[in-house]
């Protein structure tokens, strides 16, 4: 039994579509307005540049009191993103605040692509590689981007 969609979600969705953020898009499903198909472009200058990453985003019942649930669908080589696409990002967990929104969260994720943090890893193997041989890790990330994150 679903309650009517809160005004906040309606407004956020409208703004996402009317004032899109460059390099980011979020499209709600027709049959479930709380479920979004998300696309984030790899930031320029990073090893993910040129990549187009697909993510899924879901707004739980108690949104915005609780953060959106979000994960990468496109494979990505990143110390803070695990094999299931889950993301280690403070604002998606304890540092969530209801004053944040879908837009700011997606920008944070894009920024995370530009600044991988192997000190707080979610993917141990990638983080290890990142710390021990950064240039090789970056190269792998570039390859994966070419391999999996191309626009089709």
């Amino acid at each position: 039994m679903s309650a009517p969609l809160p005004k906040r979600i309606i407004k956020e969705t409208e703004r996402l579509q009317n004032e899109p953020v460059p390099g980011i898009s979020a499209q709600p499903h027709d049959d479930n307005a709380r479920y979004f198909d998300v696309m984030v472009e790899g930031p320029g200058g990073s090893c993910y540049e040129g990549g187009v990453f697909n993510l899924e985003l879901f707004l739980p019942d108690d949104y915005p009191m609780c953060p959106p649930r979000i994960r990468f669908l496109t494979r990505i080589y990143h110390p803070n993103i695990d094999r299931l696409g889950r993301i280690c990002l403070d604002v998606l967990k304890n540092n969530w605040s209801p004053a944040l929104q879908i837009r700011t969260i997606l920008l944070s994720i894009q920024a995370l692509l530009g600044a991988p943090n192997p000190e707080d890893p979610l993917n141990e193997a990638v983080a290890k590689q990142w710390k021990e041989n950064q240039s090789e890790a970056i190269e792998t990330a570039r390859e994966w981007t070419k391999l999996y994150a191309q626009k089709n």
Partner: protein
Amino acid sequence: MNVIDSVGLSDFGAEGEEDSSDTSSALMRPDEQLEEKSAPAILAAHDDARALVRLVQCQLCSKPFRLPVTLPCGHSLCRDCLPEAHEREHVSYPDIPGRRKALQCPFEDCDEEHATADCNVDVTLNKIMEAIVDVVAKHTSIAGDTPTTMEVISSWDNPTGILPSSEKTIYHQLPGGRLIATFTLAAQGKLGYNTELNYPIESSAEESERAVDDTVLSDLLESLRKEVDCHVCYNLMLDPVTTFCGHTLCRRCLERVLDHSLHCPVCRRTLVIQPSLKTQPTNKTLDNLLKGLCAEALAARAEAFAQEEDEEQGDLKTPLFVCTLGFPNQPTFLRIFEPRYRLMLRRAMETNREFGMLMYNRYLEPQGDLGPVHFYHYGTMLHIVQTQTLSDGTSLIETRGLYRFRVKAHGTRDGYSVGSIERIEDVTLEEEERIEAEETSLPPVEMGDMVDEIARMSTHNLLEMGRAFVARMQSRSASWLQQRVLDIHGQPPSDAALFPYWFASVLPISDEEKYKLLSTTTVRARLKVTASWIRRIESQRWYAPSPSPSVQSE
């Protein structure tokens, strides 16, 4: 202090008071105002120019707010108008910088001390002032040379009591329509907060002047629109409350935020605030400003909010707490810490102080028409006797069982379960008597069959069996009948209808077994259940330890 009732209109002058008194009471009680659809008294750009400017005048310096600070009492003033802080005495906790000094509140109806740490720039009000100054600057530059004449009315509340009768009436001439000219006069410090103005009308230009003011006001509303939206619900702020760090949200939104965390959602500073916001006053300046500028939108917002609250519920009106067993007439103690249940508790406290208690259905056993659901479908309606909110926002509550019910349909609302229920009641006394007569007159059975034997006992004997068992156990100092338990649950009731509930509340056997009482519809049926427990305990020492009566939410 009741915040809602304390929202005063003292910030308005004589003119404003008349216009706004009815809307304010209507708006502050969204649930009561639905019937009264009288048009809200919005301040008109031209005719109420003086009152409009007063909305943003500092009561201390009479100038438009500059870096406004909203005090813990809900009043605002310019930062430069804050009285000088003094060292506080006799305050040793919490001894942190910013709380060692305090200032005396200059507003008469407050007159309290405010710690300097609590006096910060009101971010929303400041942005509003910046937007106003921008709009005024823009319109002043295009105003050209058609000035507005303003005649200062000698104010009857002149503190000196001396009317400047010997002098000529004071006139001011400033560029722009009434709004711009009046604001500019205030900015120049020539318009006292309580001073009234008269605008001598030059009939020829009346229409065009009116149009000028209307344009200014609509420009202003346009540029203020995004500043007066709540950061959490994205709607026009309803009953705005400002935190000590200067951030403003709807009261309802801040309440909900505090269910989850004691940090400001905007700046993440720890909020030293009562999570219930009971004593947190409304931001008076902002509230009056919203009422003066967009009373209609605000009324619509309040109405939509009330409707939303109503609609969301639909037929599933009863809040359900899936946690433990409760029994009619018996106390249940709970600690509420999950955000969703805090919200449920608050809503219950605002309405009839009741919620349904259901037992958790761990193995998803089918529950009648509902199928395998996460709760057992018979429950007890609990009445909240008292709540104590701890400093971390969690609550300890004492409840007493009212009546039993069965869940007919269920759903969720903001994370907790809700449902439509039907009451489970005992059959009529005649029916009760008929059943007893029928059962006790059955031919006797062979010894040893416990069920048949119990079925043939009189209702009175079933009760006596229970009471005798309790007396026997008491004489043996059974741990589950200690004084502490009796203090909470009382002595065994002599009322046969209630004895089983009491017995189930104190007896350490499994909850699944006790649950059988909830669906019974005769006193006799309940006593037969308790009698079967006693027989089994006596024959096998059959009972399992059970958790203490004080339980936590899931």
